[in-house]
C-alpha cells in the first residue's frame, strides 16, 4: 500500500479505535466466556507470538505489571503505541504537520536494516517459544 499521510492517519485511527473497544470489551466481559479470536491459535491450537497481549494490557490497566510481563511482554509495546498514537495524530492534524508520518517512515527504515531485523526476529521467536511453553 502506497501510504500518504492522511491514509496512514485514517488507518491508525481505525486501528486504535478498534484496539480501545477491544480492551474495553476485555475489561468488562464475563471472565468465564472464552474470547480467543486468534486465527492461528484456532487453526493450529498453538498460541501465536502475540497471543496474550490483550490479557497483558488488561493486567497493566489493573496495575499488575509483573503478571502483565509474564503474560506477554509485547503487551507493553501495544499499550504504549495505543496510548501515544491517538494524541500524536490529533496534534498533527490540528497543527497540520506530519511528524508522525515522518517517524513512521524513519522506524520502517530503521527496522529494515538487516542487523536490527535479525535481532527483532530472534526476540519474537524467543517470545513465541515462551508463549508455547506457557500454554497461553
Amino acid at each position, binding site marked *: *500500500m502506497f501510504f500518504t499521510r492522511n491514509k496512514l492517519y485514517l488507518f491508525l485511527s481505525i486501528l486504535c479505535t478498534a484496539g480501545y473497544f477491544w480492551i474495553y470489551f476485555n475489561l468488562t466481559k464475563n471472565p468465564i466466556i472464552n474470547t480467543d*479470536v486468534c*486465527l492461528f491459535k484456532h487453526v493450529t491450537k498453538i498460541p501465536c*507470538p502475540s497471543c496474550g497481549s490483550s490479557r497483558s494490557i488488561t493486567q497493566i490497566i489493573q496495575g499488575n505489571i509483573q503478571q502483565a510481563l509474564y503474560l506477554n511482554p509485547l503487551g507493553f509495546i501495544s499499550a504504549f503505541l495505543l496510548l501515544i498514537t491517538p494524541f500524536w495524530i490529533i496534534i498533527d492534524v490540528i497543527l497540520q504537520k506530519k511528524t508522525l508520518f515522518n517517524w513512521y517512515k524513519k522506524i520502517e527504515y530503521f527496522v*529494515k536494516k538487516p542487523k536490527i531485523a535479525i535481532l527483532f526476529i530472534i526476540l519474537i521467536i524467543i517470545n513465541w517459544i515462551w508463549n508455547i511453553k506457557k500454554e497461553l
Partner: protein
Amino acid sequence: MEAQKVDMFILANGKFFEAHNINIIRDKLLLIDDSKWAVLSTIQFKDPTTSLIVSILAGGFGIDRFLIGDTGLGIGKLLTCGGMGIWTIVDWFMIQDATRAKNMEKIQQFLY
C-alpha cells in the same frame, strides 16, 4: 528508449504491475535515455503470487507485509495477531494489489 526494448520489458514484467499502470510505464520508458536499460533490467520486482502464498500461510504474523516492504504495517499485524484474524483475511484479497503498487513505487523512483 527503443520501442522494441520497452515492449520486451513490458512482456517480461507486465505481471508485476497493475493493468492501468502499464501504459504509463510504457510511455515513460519510451522517453528515457537508452543508457538506463542496464539499470532497468536489474531492478527486482516482487511477485504478487508469492506474496499471496505467503499471505495465506503466514499472514497472521504479518510476514506478507514484511515481504513486500511494508514493515510498519507488518509490525502492526504481528502485534495484533493479524488484526484479530480480520486483517489477515482482508489481506488475502489486498496483498496482490499491494505488491503491484509497491512495484510501481519502485519503478517510479527510476522513471522520474
